[in-house]
């Protein structure tokens, strides 16, 4: 049976100390992550690193940098798929790209890109729409290991079938196979797509805006933040977006609970694509 979250009253206290310690020692700020799911992941990390309490885990995290590196996959969640949630990608292709076509140059920011599937998906779509050569995609994340995977553009072949289905449902114009070569059990995506993607380290919790962009795509990242951090992140997107720029978020996320609700208009309600006022 899955590790049960104990109702130990000190758990939250120790968790706060752990997050504070991680921030002071490693400058990674998880202090405003949504607690309910973080508790579960920290409980799993305690099992993984053989610690009976969060305080024991803190001891190891502070004194063994490799334990901290291993902890990143518990602080953050890496779930991604190419063309995940195909109606979203179809909407970007059919409704947003025609407007982006009117610009001389287009910058896109995939915030919290994890292992890169969404950034590669957008590159393929922009390529098919003839826009990639005058586009730049910033793909950012806080997890260096995830970023390395993202940059490599190598995904297990057994994931390709579902990626292909998504690609077609998202309005793909060719076959996904046009964009990768199979080698052993992996699919290696075309390096020419990568020329237009800049992978880099960026934290929505502690960093600032680095460029003006026309489209921000940040899906299923905000659900891991509390309201305060969510507001900070949406503020960054707002500041980064050019006037009338687009913001796409996850299908169960909303700007309704953030102070920026009036700074955006709903562009496509169902697909959760907003437009800066």
């Amino acid at each position, binding site marked *: *049976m*899955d590790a049960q979250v104990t109702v130990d009253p000190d758990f939250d206290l120790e968790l706060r100390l752990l997050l504070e310690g991680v921030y002071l020692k490693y400058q990674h700020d998880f202090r405003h992550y*949504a607690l*309910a*799911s973080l508790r579960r992941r920290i409980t799993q990390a305690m099992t993984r690193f053989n610690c009976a309490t969060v305080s024991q885990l803190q001891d190891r995290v502070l004194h063994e940098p490799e334990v901290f590196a291993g902890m990143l996959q518990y602080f953050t*969640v890496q*779930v991604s798929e190419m063309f995940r949630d195909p109606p979203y990608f179809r909407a970007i292709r059919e409704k947003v790209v025609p407007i982006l076509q009117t610009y001389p140059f287009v910058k896109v920011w995939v915030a919290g890109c994890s292992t890169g599937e969404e950034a590669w998906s957008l590159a393929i779509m922009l390529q098919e729409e003839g826009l990639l050569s005058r586009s730049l995609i910033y793909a950012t994340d806080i997890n260096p290991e995830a970023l390395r995977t993202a940059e490599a553009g190598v995904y297990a072949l057994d994931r390709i079938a579902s990626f292909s289905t998504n690609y077609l449902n998202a309005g793909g114009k060719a076959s996904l196979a046009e964009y990768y070569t199979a080698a052993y059990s992996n699919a290696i995506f075309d390096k020419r797509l990568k020329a237009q993607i800049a992978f880099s380290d960026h934290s929505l919790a502690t960093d600032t805006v680095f460029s003006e962009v026309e489209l921000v795509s940040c899906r299923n990242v905000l659900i891991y933040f509390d309201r305060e951090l969510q507001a900070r992140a949406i503020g960054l997107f707002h500041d980064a977006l050019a006037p009338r720029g687009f913001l796409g978020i*996850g299908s169960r*996320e909303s700007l309704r609970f953030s102070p920026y609700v009036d700074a955006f208009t709903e562009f496509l309600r169902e697909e959760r694509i907003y437009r800066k006022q």
Partner: protein
Amino acid sequence: MSPAEAVLNIEAIVIGASAGGVEALGVLLDGLPAGFQPSLLVVLHLPPHRPSLLTKLFGARCRLPVREAMDKEKIERGTVYFAPPDYHLLVEGGKTLALSQDAPVQFSRPSIDVLFDSAARAYGPALLGLVLSGANNDGAAGLASIRAAGGRAWVQEPENAMSSTMPAAAIAHAGADLILPIRDMAERLAHLRSGRAFAI
């Protein structure tokens, strides 16, 4: 005063259902009277990647508002929230909803255990957990968390359930305050209209 005579003050009800659960859930939700006070949070196992029709299905029959949970939404009284397909549904300390795409738990996302654990923390003794028909073990650990935090547990009588595995596992692992056929459970639930009741 024995625990059986204690006054209950139920703020929220969490419900877990799987195989055979649509029917059981229908009986429960149909029986809720208008003005029912406690909030209801529901995990029903479903195949991922399909738009959820649950809110339409149950919303047409239920006297209370039925919604699919939205991240960071404040939990309102007398409202039924369903976990969206492919997301875990959790309760945060401030009684707001949270979603996550953490790994499936026991092959399930949404997971009943994940909802129950987080709700147990947020509501403590003001929580009632219901485990209905299902063909797996999800909900057993979560129901134990609810009871450990002082909340109450009702389980559908396994012989009365279309799939008995899940209610039987919950009873074996967590025990229950009441084990009931679904119609009796619906009737008792309706009596919790104000959230306050004597005994279980």
